[in-house]
């Protein structure tokens, strides 16, 4: 599931500060990744709604389409956390290049299964 924005009785200031902090602290690269993430999330939500509101038949196609979104999302999110300079200490064995290679490999495997499952 793509994370939903936590809905809580927040005042205006935390959100704005959050957005502000985000736009200030985040490198462009990560912003680009985030854009991709948002796209995936929207696509996933759309499919989920279509499944619930219209039809879940054929179920395998829904699962394939939806999990391709989810899978791509988490792989991209993984990439994001791996290339995030803040997390350098955690990923000593994983250089950004290595992370990207991992990401590409994982995605290719994922898409292989997606298209196998789709039809």
């Amino acid at each position: 599931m793509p994370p939903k924005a936590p809905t809580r009785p927040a005042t205006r200031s935390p959100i704005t500060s959050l957005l502000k902090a985000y736009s200030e602290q985040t490198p462009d690269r990560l912003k680009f990744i985030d854009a991709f993430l948002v796209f995936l999330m929207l696509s996933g939500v759309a499919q989920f709604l279509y499944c619930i509101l219209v039809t879940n038949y054929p179920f395998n196609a829904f699962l394939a389409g939806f999990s391709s979104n989810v899978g791509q999302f988490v792989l991209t999110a993984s990439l994001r956390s791996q290339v995030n300079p803040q997390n350098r200490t955690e990923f000593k064995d994983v250089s950004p290049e290595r992370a990207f290679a991992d990401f590409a490999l994982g995605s290719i495997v994922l898409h292989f299964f997606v298209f196998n499952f789709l039809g």
Partner: protein
Amino acid sequence: MSTAYALPKDLSRATVVNTASLIRIVALSLISGAAIASRLFAVINFESIIHEFDPWFNYRATRVLASKGFYEFWNWFDPTAWYPLGRVVGGTIYPGLMATSGVIYNVLHYFNLPVDIRNICVLLAPGFSALTAWATYMFTKELKDESAGLLAAAFIGIVPGYISRSVAGSYDNEAIAIFLLMFTFYLWIKALKAGSAFFGTCAAVFYFYMVAAWGGYAFITNMIPVHAMVLILMGRYSSRLYVAYSSWYAVGTLSSMQVPFVGFQPVRTSEHMAALGVFGLLQIIAFAQLVRSHVSSKQFNNLLFYGVIVLGVGGVGAVVGLTYAGWIAPWTGRFYSLWDTGYAKKYIPIIASVSEHQPTAWPSFFMDLQLLVFLFPAGVVLCFKELRDEHVFVIIYAIVASYFAGVMVRLMLTLTPCVCVASAIALSTLMDTYIDPVQPEADEDETAQSDAGDSVSGSSATGSISGAAPKKAKKLAAAAVAAPPSANPLAELVGAATGGPRMKKGVWGFDTRFTVLLHTFGMLAFFVMHCTYVTSSAYSSPSVVLASTSPDGSPHIIDDFREAYYWLRQNTKEDAVVMSWWDYGYQIAGMADRPTLVDNNTWNNTHIATVGKAMSSSEEVAYPILRAHDVDYVLVIFGGLLGYSGDDINKFLWMIRIAQGVWPEEVQEANYFTPGGEYRVDERASKIMKESLMYKMSYYRFTELYGANPAQDRVRQQTIPKPSPTLDYLDEAFTSENWIVRIYQVKKEDHLGRDIKSANAFEGGKKRKRGRPAVGRRRAMQ
């Protein structure tokens, strides 16, 4: 610095490292050789033959796969199984095993090595046991070091608990599944350690292989989420966990759904919900972490914390709600029987009737694990001592698998690798301590002490990092263990790596070391002897062929099963339907190549109950059932002559129970006991028991064998009453040499339309009572 024994001093570091790795490779290959060799007892004692029951089906399926190709295999509908329902084989099996053999077969044939598919099947399990040893080595290496890995590999190679499922000829899913289990776990640990999506994806791919190979994949499906969950609860969430788990789950779940038998289960059944829940939770936590990294407000964090809890509770609620709404299938009976050992007996006799599903007896732990039973807890305790993420995994694995192994005999198999790993850690620590040539000197090597202390008391944040720090030292330490003659500078490093506290209260002198090590090696030697003995005597019997020793000590082979199956194959019509209890279904299909009513794939309880009812009813009741199912032959296993205790009379109560589950009015278990509540077959047996088809078929003409002497059933130690039962609706067609297999032919309806009993009476020359016109007077007068 003093040493307990002299060390060669003129060795360069490179020499030591090279020698160590050479010795490691040699040791691993020797372990592989030992693992394979000890599994060949079955082939040497008997022959290259497929064992037991399920392997016969796997073998048959593999032959189809090898001869017709994968797509035909996938779409294989077997009309001869579960006659007349048939079985959609392609959609109801885990094809991993057959696919593996098929690939090996095709590769060998591509290289013009004309190996018979049967030999591939027979030798697949020993081959994979070598791979298991390697995977265990890799896994343990991640936990401790290479030396522990080698020990673990040696243990798993010869431990009877694993051999019992992987001797040559035991061509079953477990044969490859344990390798996949260990390797998936290894990849998971690796992915978690490095935070690598690559290893996560690899773990997912092997998970896919595992799903395709064994129904026990649910163990992985739940172990990894539980591990992740425990780490989260311990406050050890990290991005590495997120990366490893997410990549594993996303790819693994999608891939597991490609297996037709699994289908949509990963999103539909409760067994898989834990994995999904943890996945969702990780997303939420990751998001929260992201937000927190940008904002640092205490109140905000609190809100976030509660938000997470609310979402978590909501998620669980949603799962429960969906379960009630029927969207998610509730837990299956087999799953319940894991929690309540009495459940199966009460509700699903068919599960309880399988001996593999009985709770484990204590002696079998010792028999299967021997020495490792005692080392195992020590190893788990040592895991607590370090308690990095991967140690948490082993601890959880140990707890869960121990419980399951206690509940069900067959789950001993999943416990065994964990026991081997933990024991290897314990034993390796012991040997490190006692082989280490460094004498303790209280005031030496402060740095080492602090370093090691760090790793023990390491906080959640730094624990795993400190584990990585002495990596190089560790490698060398392992080298030192593997190659005892090491140089002085190395000895220092040994001390540094294997723990500072020992420096204060350590081992002095050579005698202590020698004594302890001598004992250890003695125990290991006994372990090897035990394993060899158990393997050769208990676990190598194909159970298709039985062995006994004649009074003069020479071995005697009892080959009744194959004798009977080949009789069927050669003397009956190709579409003659054979009814037997389901245990023998796969064997009949595999060896006799005849349609069967029920087999070891016990998917249709009603059909099995029908067979149970036919077996437990009188001839008159059974006959219409037999005719309706086009049964031509009935096969029973009878051990009374030889003393073969696994026969059908001993399984008979389960047939009755299963039949009673479906027809409680017609079959009642109590009727088959004597008034005193005993299960007997002698003259005190109840009338219903004596009239049941099973009793009659087992003891038909049995007393004739003894002439005037009392006929003694050597399994039940009871005397069979004379005269022997008579059969009207069946003809004895075949009885094997030792009477183990008896085959009866079902008579056709009488061609004059009489009931068969009176037809038989006529054949016997009995006169019929004179009849009268049935018509009434009025009609006659018309």
